[in-house]
């Protein structure tokens, strides 16, 4: 019988030893070692043929093209979504041109830093345009869509297409001096000096966010005209926008047979979700729509709180802006990363 008890003790010991395998690791290792720095890709890691961004954009001939060849582009990131004015995509620029990469993820600034080199394997992705602006994204399944590319979105495709290289110095914006240079710089980071405010505003919104977005009589309202707006900010949060709407500032727009101011004062709830507002400047005589998001961190912030300087802009004082130039049906649009660094009064 003593032998038996010995057996049992031995068995217990064996059990303890045998089971000290993988599942004991989280048990006995309290402090996990910090993971290694993730791999930094370089040109030598890339297979296939390198093309320039200009060459890639030139593949677009009026119809979306799904890339079948094993080609890749390399460039530096010029945009940052940290301040919220860019959203779900970033721009990549090489010596030849710049292009929007419609990655479809949020908080890209975490992994795609301004100035960081990025390699994009284009095979399986689609070059397409929206209102004339060529970008790189994914094939659109919905043929009725006015977009020719969709967001890439799927992490698997992102992981197999987009490779992060070393971080580096930020791209220096191209300093444009004449309007004729604009077209060559579409998609690129540019600096435009001498921009003049034109008292021209664009805004649109929906009475019912969940309603029919194409019902321009009862649901969707918009305005795209000059006036005396007295709006001292280029980006507006939903609350601020609602305040202006209710105050009648934007009564140039009508919906449901009345002005938007009257409508929202009458008790119709304001939908905070989907609205858009931007203002126009001119650069060397060309009109440029400066796009601003209400989600940007500088929404509602006075353009320049210094007494009188905002008034200076209204009165014609020019400004310098740095941002990405884009096009919309032949018109120029301009998107800045951060108002604190990309906007100065001349």
């Amino acid at each position, binding site marked *: *019988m003593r032998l038996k008890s010995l057996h049992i003790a031995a068995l217990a010991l064996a059990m303890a030893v045998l*089971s000290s395998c993988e599942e004991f690791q989280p048990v006995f290792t309290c402090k996990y070692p*910090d993971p290694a720095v993730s791999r930094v890709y370089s040109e030598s890691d890339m297979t296939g043929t390198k093309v320039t961004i200009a060459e890639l954009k030139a593949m677009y001939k009026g119809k979306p093209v799904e890339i079948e060849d094993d080609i890749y582009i390399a460039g530096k990131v010029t945009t940052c979504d940290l301040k919220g004015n860019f959203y779900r995509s970033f721009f990549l620029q090489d010596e030849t041109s710049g292009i929007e990469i419609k990655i479809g993820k949020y908080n890209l600034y975490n992994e795609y830093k301004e100035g960081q080199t990025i390699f994009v394997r284009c095979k399986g992705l689609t070059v397409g345009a929206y209102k004339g602006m060529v970008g790189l994204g994914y094939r659109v*399944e919905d043929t009725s869509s006015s977009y020719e590319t969709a967001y890439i979105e799927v992490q698997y495709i992102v992981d197999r297409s987009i490779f992060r290289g070393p971080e580096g110095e930020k791209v220096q914006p191209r300093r444009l001096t004449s309007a004729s240079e604009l077209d060559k710089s579409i998609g690129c980071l540019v600096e435009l000096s001498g921009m003049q405010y034109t008292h021209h505003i664009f805004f649109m919104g929906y009475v019912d966010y969940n309603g029919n977005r194409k019902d321009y009589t009862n649901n969707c309202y918009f305005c795209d005209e000059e006036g005396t707006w007295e709006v001292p900010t280029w980006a507006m949060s939903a609350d601020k926008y609602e305040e202006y709407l209710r105050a009648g500032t934007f009564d140039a727009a009508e919906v449901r047979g009345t002005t938007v101011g009257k409508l929202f004062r009458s008790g119709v709830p304001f939908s905070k979700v989907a609205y858009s507002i931007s203002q126009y400047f001119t650069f060397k005589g060309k009109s440029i729509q400066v796009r601003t998001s209400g989600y940007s*961190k500088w929404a509602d912030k006075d353009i320049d709180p210094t007494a009188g300087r905002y008034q200076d802009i209204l009165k014609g004082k020019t400004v310098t802006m740095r941002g990405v130039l884009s096009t919309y049906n032949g018109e120029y649009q301009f998107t800045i990363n951060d108002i604190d660094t990309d906007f100065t009064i001349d």
Partner: protein
Amino acid sequence: MKKLLTLLAVALLALNLQAQPTGGIKGVIVNRSGREALAGADVKLIQEGEVIAEQTTLPDGSFSFTGIEDGSYQADVSANGFLPTTVFVIVEKGLIRDVMTVTLSADSVNSEVDDSAYTEFDMNDSGYSDTPTIIAGSNDPYASVASFGFSSVRFKNRGYSSEAQEVYLAGVKMNDAITGYTPFSLWSGLNEATRAQDVTHGTQISDVAVGGYNGVNNILAVPSQVRKGWRFSALTNSATYRLRLMGTYASGRLDNGWAYAFNVSARVGGNDWIKGVYYRSFAIYAGAEKKFDDVNNLALVAFVTPGERGAQAASTQEVYDMVGDNMYNSNWGYQNGRVRNSRVRKTIEPVFLLKYSFTPSDRFEGNAMLLYRTGKNGYTALDWYQSADPRPDYYRNLPSYFKNDDPDYGKEDARKAAWAEEAWRADYASTRHLDWDRLYNINYASYDHAYDEWHNPLERRSRYVQEERRVDQNDFHLALNTIWRQSSVFTLNAGINGRYNRSENYKVIADLLGGDYYVNIDNFAERSFTDPELLQNDWDYYMEHGHPQLLHKGDKYGYDYLAQIIDAEAWANAILTFGGLSIKASAAAGYNSLWRTGLVRKGLFLDNSKGDSEKPSFFTYRGKLGVDYSFVGGHTLYANVAYVNEAPKFNQAFVSPRTRNSLVPHLTTVKTTAADINYLFAANGYNIRVTGYWAQIKDQTKVMSFYDDSQQSFTNFAMSGIDERHLGVEIGWQIPLVVSGLSLKGALAWGEHIYTSTPKMTQTIDNSARVVFSDEPVKYWAQSPVYRWIDRDLNIVDQDADGPIIDHWQKHHIASTPQLAADLSLNYRTKSYWFFTIEGQYFANSYLDMNPVYRMEKTCMGPDKVETPIEVEYMASQEKFDPAFLLNASIGKSWYLQYKYNFGFSLSVNNILNNRNVRTGGYEQSRLTTSSSAERYYKFDSKYFYMQGVNYMLNLYFRF
């Protein structure tokens, strides 16, 4: 019961022995729980170590020895399923000595409580709780089966929530002050020290309380009640943790009046089924007790179970199907190749108990208890700032986000769906798991210049951190209880209890995950507001320093408030016994108050976040009536009725306790009326109980907070006026078969536990406290219509002049427990201490927890504000789980050496058929998507928990 020693009257010694002894000893043996008479108990009369007489108690529990000489005797009382006890009696002057009632405590049949019942189910802030109710094993034929046998499916006894089960420690009510949940985890791992328990079922009263409607479980916990001797065990199992080692020593009552006990254990390791779920838990119990004389006894006990447990998350069926495993757990990922769980429960909550017992006569016993619970209870989770949701099964990572065959979903990208699915199936780049390496790498490169003025600009601002949500309790109890046995007819049992609980709720930075600091601002508020003052979690700090606090490991952040609770109750049970008949009447009255004390001022709620909230108080009361009748031949019939008026719990009293002092509207007491009738038969090895029960619970409240897509905001929901009705039968049996040692055991529980009211809901925006709607009925909470369809495929509903014809109404049930549970086992015990068991189990009528938002008319209507039968059936019906059949078996053997050493093993294998499709619970998500037609909403998929497949437990033990 050792303390019954003090029942003895010590008096003068008899000087003269009479030639013809006329002295005697008589008494009644009762079950401590419920005070039913125990028929068939064995009473041995011992003098100077020799058994001089032996009797078996009569159906009314009585025994009587006559014709014995004056002198001192020892009566050893034992009964199957009860802990034995000894009574010392002195017979003098030739009189018949009446020891009156001798109470026996039930022996826990299953000392191996299934620890899987404590598995941390991560309800992901869904608003649902998942605290198990653990039916204490006892000699009750139903409970002895249900306690262990039903725990694998997380059975809720009679459909009641955890709060309904009253758990006492040495007469002190231990249910959590904030939530009311059962506190078993405070002493889990101390199986031996907490083995001696007095258990009552249903609406029965207890020695230590009036009790509620789901039983009272009093763990005796004092050292003299821990079984004497040394005990060691080693246990391995594949369902929860790999290894448990336990050692116990108890001195028993020593001659000098002292008693000591120690119990220590360690539970460590993962399991075969759910990766990331692990234990690293230790437990220590120490107690000392001194009996100073026949009157005074003092016990001091302290225990703590420090440790951590990895939690399991629920996922959608889509995810389980892609992974090919219903036990998939999204909470963990590899860090440097090692499994790391993001959600870990970490506790160190010591409990100190001082118990003084006073027994001036054998008719009166008084106990005074002081109990203090303190320490910390943390639960880790990931927190992130302006970064992607790191959870692998986040809905945007799933194929269903890209493609749904119904074009109305507007998700038509089959190619993207295929790529997403491929990534899941192939586990490409660890798609299935948390990517710790990625989180660290994001933090490594996170140079943020917003606060450069206040720190070294080379420090990196973590975008992902692991937070630890803490609920650190300070729980003070004072309890007094007395038993006065006025005569063999009348017993009065009364007491008072007081509790003050002060719990600090806050969170700390547990791990900066490779970064250097984090910032104490409200991430949610930042999405809506730009004014920095509004973003502050600690506005006072911001105003003083000009910037929010930069946080390092261990710093408090987010929220910080005290939950403060005062509970007081006075109670009494009166028991009248006339032979086999006993009548019990009980009453209690109480006072409860609760309030929140904010310790930080939040930017969003400057006036309503810091300092004391209102202090609602409640007068509560309860009453019970019961009657027992024991017939000849081991038959007992008993019935009870109860009315319980209880205060609401703190966790259901505040709209958003993390941010502000606002109370839930219509805060009121919860009123329960309950009744049961029971038949018990115990004789000749038969042990059968049949019970029918009914209960109605009224005026419960529930609060939840989650993101509401229709408001595009994080919102708070407060639902009041929730009523439930529970009714059913439970049957337990233990039947000896013809072959000696062979018996048939089983239990059957059938119930219908449903919601019966239309509660009212108030929704507020968390950021602004703006009321979205107030007191709107949750129209389809208690039931939802099932329409009469002409052709289901064509979606044509039968109509008449009043509109669509409703075929019937579907009742909505209490969720996450089978409402039909059955167990049948064949047991064989040999004389050489082998035992074999084979057991079949069937579980059915289990339902999914309902999200009330889906039961509101506006949600059913959709954006077009038109409610259609398709929408109502889709949105409001309650999901019923498939029934399940399980097969289990166990084997064991004990050896005795030299009449002193006992060692043995038991091995059980559960779910032998390896059924991996048994849903044990889950919850509905709260989010909605709008259809492309903008006519209706679609729900996000529900999330489920499953039971583990085949698993074993091997226990080796050694006792002496």
